[in-house]
């Protein structure tokens, strides 16, 4: 299905990432955004509020993030594509509702422009420390899809893709951008509507009385209907059967009890290969592979250039889809290379996944950064150099001591003059 020309503001723009995400959402056919202002994601909400009414879409600023995500799920079941926009603290507030979204299989998108954390942290500067939260933040077992764009153009493109994935797999999809990308102004090309591919909602077309809201198709994803179309829906956040009716705990009787929640994780895990998107470069003879995502990828490019200048063979792997994690790819690479270098703007999150998937075959070096800034490419280059020269197998993640750390803790840096 192609995008509706009414929703697409075709043209070439110079805009920041947040704005591009707002344009992308509308182009993807988003009809409802419930949001709450939070730096640094507000511009996306502002953009949507400005362009939505002309396309019959609506932006509502809810009273808090709890309300905004609940309204988004409501709107999703009313039959429209929906999104919410937030950053770290708001994202933490949404955790309970994300579980509900996974449970009632409402397709919706969350745009999280990450900032420095924890808690209020550094609101106006960047961070990548919500990556694990995206996967594990809500209680109970569920799987989500998370995408990490690295430029305003990608925030446009991957917002559309996020909508498509959420419709396809009926699960919450997170766009885990960061403040740098969100506030970076670059050229953004909005293509004509006929060049934008849109995944339509998987509506049920059979006879009304036969409809089961949670009866899966072959790919484990059930079909949806709209509220108010006379299907007599019963949708609950409790563990439910195919009809949607809650099932009770029968374990006291000592019986086996099959839980339908298994499908919620399987529908992503078994389709992981179709979902995962990566880019790789220079892998053929690489001794060290740099694994990065989001803004760190763009910094890593420079770090790799420096290292290559010293004659080191470095491969560059970029995770566009961070969740589900490309276990197989990393595992495969691990048997070929000496080490992985993972620069990320946190003190170790995705690096542990890389460590897990490398199964002790390659060393893993973390180049950390606390946030409120990006890496110094020299640090990445030095970490690469270290990794290529390290002969031993090291049974833990090596945390590279960055220039910043040395400066702050050893260089006599004074915070209070």
């Amino acid at each position: 299905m192609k995008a509706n020309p009414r929703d697409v503001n075709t043209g070439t723009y110079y805009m920041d990432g947040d704005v591009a995400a707002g344009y992308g959402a509308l182009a993807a056919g988003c009809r409802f955004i419930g949001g709450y202002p939070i730096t640094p994601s507000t511009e996306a909400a502002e953009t949507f509020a400005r362009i939505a009414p002309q396309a019959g879409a609506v932006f509502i600023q809810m009273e808090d993030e709890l309300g905004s995500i609940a309204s988004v799920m409501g709107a999703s079941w009313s039959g429209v594509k929906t999104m919410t926009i937030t950053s770290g603290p708001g994202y933490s507030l949404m955790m309970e509702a994300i579980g509900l979204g996974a449970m009632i299989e409402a397709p919706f998108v969350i745009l999280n422009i990450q900032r420095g954390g924890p808690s209020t942290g550094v609101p106006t500067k960047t961070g990548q420390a919500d990556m694990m939260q995206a996967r594990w933040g809500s209680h109970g077992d569920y799987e989500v899809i998370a995408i990490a764009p690295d430029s305003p153009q990608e925030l446009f493109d991957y917002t559309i893709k996020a909508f498509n994935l959420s419709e396809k797999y009926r699960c919450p999809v997170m766009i885990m951008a960061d403040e740098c990308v969100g506030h970076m102004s670059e050229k953004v090309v909005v293509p004509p509507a006929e060049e934008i591919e849109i995944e339509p909602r998987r509506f049920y077309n059979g006879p009304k009385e036969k409809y089961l809201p949670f009866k899966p198709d072959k790919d484990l994803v059930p079909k949806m209907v709209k509220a108010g179309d006379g299907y007599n829906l019963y949708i609950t956040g409790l563990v439910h059967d195919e009809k949607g009716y809650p099932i009770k705990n029968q374990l006291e009787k000592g019986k086996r009890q099959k839980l339908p929640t298994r499908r919620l994780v399987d529908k992503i895990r078994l389709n992981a290969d179709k979902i995962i998107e990566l880019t790789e470069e220079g892998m053929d003879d690489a001794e060290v592979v740099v694994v990065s995502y989001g803004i760190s990828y763009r910094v890593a490019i420079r770090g790799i250039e420096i290292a290559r200048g010293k004659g080191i063979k470095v491969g560059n792997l970029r995770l566009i889809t961070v969740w589900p994690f490309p276990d197989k790819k990393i595992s495969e690479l691990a048997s070929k290379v000496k080490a992985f270098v993972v620069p990320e703007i946190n003190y170790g999150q995705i690096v542990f996944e890389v460590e897990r998937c490398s199964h002790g075959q390659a060393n893993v070096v973390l180049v950390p950064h606390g946030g409120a800034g990006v890496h110094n490419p020299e640090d990445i280059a030095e970490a690469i150099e270290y990794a290529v020269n390290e002969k031993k197998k090291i049974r833990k993640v090596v945390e590279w001591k960055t220039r910043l750390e040395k400066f702050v803790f050893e260089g006599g840096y004074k915070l209070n003059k």
Partner: protein
Amino acid sequence: MNPIITAFVNGIKKSGLELSNIVVVSDIPFEPEVIKEAGVDFFHVTRGRAIAFGTGLKLGNPDLKVVAFIGDLMTLGGNHLVHSGRRNMEMLVICVNNFIYKEIAGTPAPSVSPGFSAFSTFERPFNAPHLANSCGAVYTARWTALHTNELENSIANALDKRGFSVIEVLSPGPNFYKEINQVDSELLDFYYKNSVTKNNEDTRNVEITPEEKIVTGEFTDKEKSPFIDTYNAQLGKILGDKFIPLGGQSGRD
């Protein structure tokens, strides 16, 4: 069956609305049979978020008639209640209040909801109709589980209103699944002896206190432009022809 649910189902029928257009959002799980019988769509969402979820449903499809059941005494969801009242979001909120009995009776309450009995018995409850009224609800009423007939009519009236309507129902709280079908006869007796109906009473005077009788009745009934009308009017004024108003099927794919 719980008298409130029965009254609710009868109330919808009395209102003459298209049943398939009604969506019930609740943080209390209903028995599936009830929903099947009522012929409405039903969403059981996280605690306290029924009103916010309903807001999304309404704005996603303005043709829907949304009814939100809140069973948590507006604790978790209090904020959504006051803000939706302020916006005058078109929806009916039925607030099931099980707090009062314990407050007033002063004796150990029957275990209507295990675990809740001992808590905070010293705290003053909200004057729910007044709170709703003060933040802009167009319709407020209070009934007990005993006033099934009045409750039915009230629900039918409220569904007729365009705007944010709140009906508080004093009842044993169906906080947990199994209790939804249980009603305590002792409690009904208590309501019978201790309530008085005063329609159109100023909501300031309907606070529930241990000393006075519970005032029931329809308290507020006013006209105010609902959110979607205000939205369409304001944006239409500014944007003119470019604006695609909410409502009908215009904005939907």
